């Protein structure tokens, strides 16, 4: 594989990205090993995942933590996280004024992403919040920190020209939250084609001698026939401009024309368990965004699976995919989250501390879980790549499915405070964040902050803990 490091081939190519598959596909869908290389970035072996960011940071991880204590190779950012000033206050978003040298990405500098990591930019967050308004011929609906808005595809092109990520995702005319009707399906391919073309034309305008961002074009989550005109264009006039494909669900693999099989495939689909990831890997997806990492972290759950499974399957008692650290049973446990784990959290801390931090609603609890959970997923993909290499992937996948439960553990505890751009409330749902302040009484506020014992604790608990004794 040493040849894959060779960047000189990258420099000469019209493509800013080099994706080399270890073996060419013989079928439409089969697991594949690849390596994605971009100039000046550490190559990424696939299958792999891309960390999803929120406002430029992986949730809970300050940039130094991410650099020093994770193996994150690629980060996904969403334009809607940066343009609330444009969409709501008719001002230039600060990110567009951010200074950078010609060879630098202002976005990368703004969010302080390390130079070695791949920077991917798409229009919507991962996972995207559903919007009430539908797309138009020229714009999609977005959510910013100031509320719902529209993103014109021309503005998207302009943003890409300014922000210069390594990889940009074409906008697909895709609905989130419900299925498209027949009339809408007819428009999806046409709109997506128009938007992708505009992006290709826009990126040609750059004349600073730097490679253009690599473009990943959407494969729409509809049958191939319903988007054939668009797919034809991808193989024909756009073939030199498209460097990868974006899929919104695994089934869309079937729509990829044979001539595009060599392109890397990024899935934005909702893979809500490692089993779903394995299914998608088996069908030939290369790169994933994985919302469940941050979701489990926020829920106070420590992921706990490995691939291949290290234990023989026991059908009667499948292993859990994670452990709910809110459970008081961990309060005195001095073992790390996982005995064999080498992440920052497991090397430095025990379960008792994590449980305490969650219980005390200290932000560090989510930091430590986020480091651990990313590490688990990192190792999972390393194991997957090794098993494909060994030719044992199918067997290991079957064994993994038998070893672990189907679903991640239920969320029991309270997560961190959520913001409107991070979470969409459902009808008749209880409020997501408990009220922080009830009165202007400072003492009461501090008492809330002190959040003592469990809600059911009484004087006996205090006494038992030796903190104080009952007066009478």
């Amino acid at each position: 594989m040493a040849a894959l490091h060779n960047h000189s081939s990258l420099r000469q190519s019209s493509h800013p990205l080099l994706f080399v598959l270890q073996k060419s596909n013989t079928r439409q869908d089969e697991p594949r090993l690849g390596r994605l290389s971009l100039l000046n970035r550490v190559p990424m072996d696939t299958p792999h995942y891309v960390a999803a960011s929120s406002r430029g940071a992986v949730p809970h991880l300050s940039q130094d933590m991410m650099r020093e204590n994770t193996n994150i190779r690629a980060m996904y950012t969403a334009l809607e996280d940066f343009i609330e000033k444009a969409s709501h206050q008719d001002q230039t978003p600060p990110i567009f004024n951010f200074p950078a040298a010609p060879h630098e990405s202002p976005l990368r500098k703004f969010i302080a992403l390390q130079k070695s990591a791949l920077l991917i930019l798409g229009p919507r967050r991962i996972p995207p919040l559903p919007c009430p308004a539908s797309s138009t011929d020229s714009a999609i609906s977005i959510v910013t920190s100031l509320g719902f808005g529209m993103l014109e595809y021309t503005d998207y092109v302009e943003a890409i020209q300014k922000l210069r990520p390594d990889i940009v995702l074409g906008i697909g005319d895709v609905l989130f939250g419900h299925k498209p009707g027949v009339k809408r399906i007819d428009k999806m391919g046409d709109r997506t084609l128009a938007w992708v073309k505009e992006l290709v034309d826009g990126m040609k305008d750059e004349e600073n001698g730097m490679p253009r961002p690599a473009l990943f074009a959407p494969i729409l989550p509809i049958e191939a026939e319903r988007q054939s005109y668009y797919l034809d264009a991808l193989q024909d006039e756009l073939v030199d401009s498209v460097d990868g494909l974006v899929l919104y669900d695994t089934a869309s693999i079937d729509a990829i024309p044979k001539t595009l099989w060599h392109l890397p495939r990024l899935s934005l689909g909702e893979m809500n368990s490692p089993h779903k990831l394995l299914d998608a890997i088996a069908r030939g997806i290369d790169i994933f965004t994985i919302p469940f990492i941050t979701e489990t972290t926020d829920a106070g759950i420590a992921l706990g699976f490995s691939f291949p499974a290290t234990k023989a399957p026991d059908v009667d008692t499948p292993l859990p995919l994670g452990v709910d650290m809110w459970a008081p049973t961990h309060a005195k446990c001095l073992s790390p989250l996982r005995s064999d784990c080498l992440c920052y959290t497991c090397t430095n801390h025990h379960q008792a501390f994590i449980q305490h931090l969650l219980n005390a609603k200290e932000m560090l609890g989510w930091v430590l879980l986020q480091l651990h959970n990313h590490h688990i997923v990192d190792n999972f993909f390393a194991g997957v790549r090794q098993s494909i290499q060994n030719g044992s992937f199918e067997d290991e996948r079957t064994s993994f499915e038998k070893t672990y439960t189907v679903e991640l553990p239920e969320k029991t505890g309270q997560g961190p405070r959520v913001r409107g751009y991070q979470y969409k409330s459902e009808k008749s749902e209880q409020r997501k964040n408990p009220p922080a302040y009830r009165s202007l009484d400072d003492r009461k506020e501090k008492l809330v902050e002190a959040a003592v014992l469990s809600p059911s604790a009484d004087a006996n608990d205090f006494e038992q803990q030796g903190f104080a004794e009952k007066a009478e």
Partner: protein
Amino acid sequence: MSTSAQSAALKFEIVAKCSTTKARASILTLPHGPVSLPIFQPVATQASLKGLTSTQLAETGCNLCLNNAYHLGLKPGQETLEKVGGAHALQGWKGNILTDSGGFQMVSLLKLAKVTEEGVRFLSPHDGTPMLLTPEHSMSLQNTIGSDIIMQLDDVIATTSPDAERMKEAMERSIRWLDRCVTAHKRPEKQNLFCIIQGGLDLEMRKVCCKEMAKRDTPGIAIGGLSGGEDKMLYCQVVSACTDLLPPNKPRYVMGVGYPEDLVVSIALGADMFDCVWPTRTARFGNAVTSTGTLNLRHASFANDTGPIDADCACTCCMPEDEGGLGITRAYIYHVAAKETAGAHLLTMHNVHYLLSLMGKVRAAIIEDRYPEFLHSYFRRAYGDMAKVPTWALTALKEVGVDLLA
């Protein structure tokens, strides 16, 4: 008099004294390593410094942080602390820890707390059952926590209280409670019990308390009951009166103080150690402590400010990327402040680093005997014009021989 002192678990050595002011530079050696004084101690109330890992905290230069015995006594509780092996083991912190006794929280957080000779009577925050916290309870809990410095339970009342009788009672009771704490303290060879001088704003009462408590010969001495909204001028008088009377060979800790100008003035008045939640709490609201004052980076005027949080700062956030930092800008903090937890972590890191680095500069100035010059340049930088420096600071510094207007 001697300029160093040693007790079973502590060594205090004065390295240099300012020839003009009462400022001192010293080394305080505790069971978890030496600490250079003067020092600001960040407050990790519940065994965690607001989202920072112990590695990040150490990287700010911190080797002595605070935990709160009141909070740890409730969560995770004494029994768990016992099982885990104390607060160091709980939080994976290799540096030193100081714990507050819980008396202050009892009175400031709990309505209807009542202090009797026995201890603090309060109603359980959950079910209203009457409870009693005694000096013996506090020692037992802090012994279990295993902190390097433990504080006596004291009778704290607001300095602004007009009730002189009650103030006197509190001061005298704090002395009696100190005696009970000394008796109840089970690990003097591993943990250092500090007394807490009380007496409100009454200098005579403070003098009596200083004299009495100094007799008890605790390894260190705290000046308590301040930083409760009293007139800064009176605050300075109290600190100065106490440092005049306290033995010079003991570390002096002024509790609850954290504004940069309060620190530099209090150091000139002879204090060595400080703590305050302000720098870390204010970080979570998007406020950055800088050499030119505190900036609210959530203000729209910073949205396009592409400079570092503080151009003079050498913290991980402020250092440019090619010098090993992150190159975080004010514009990025504006983008994430009060929205992403990571934004709070970045500013917390900066603010703690700022105060620790300020203490480092103060210390260097004392050692080189140019602390008066340091004070001049510090206040000129922070206020632009010396005429804008608050009167209390001008007055207090003039008392110790530094005339900022000269």
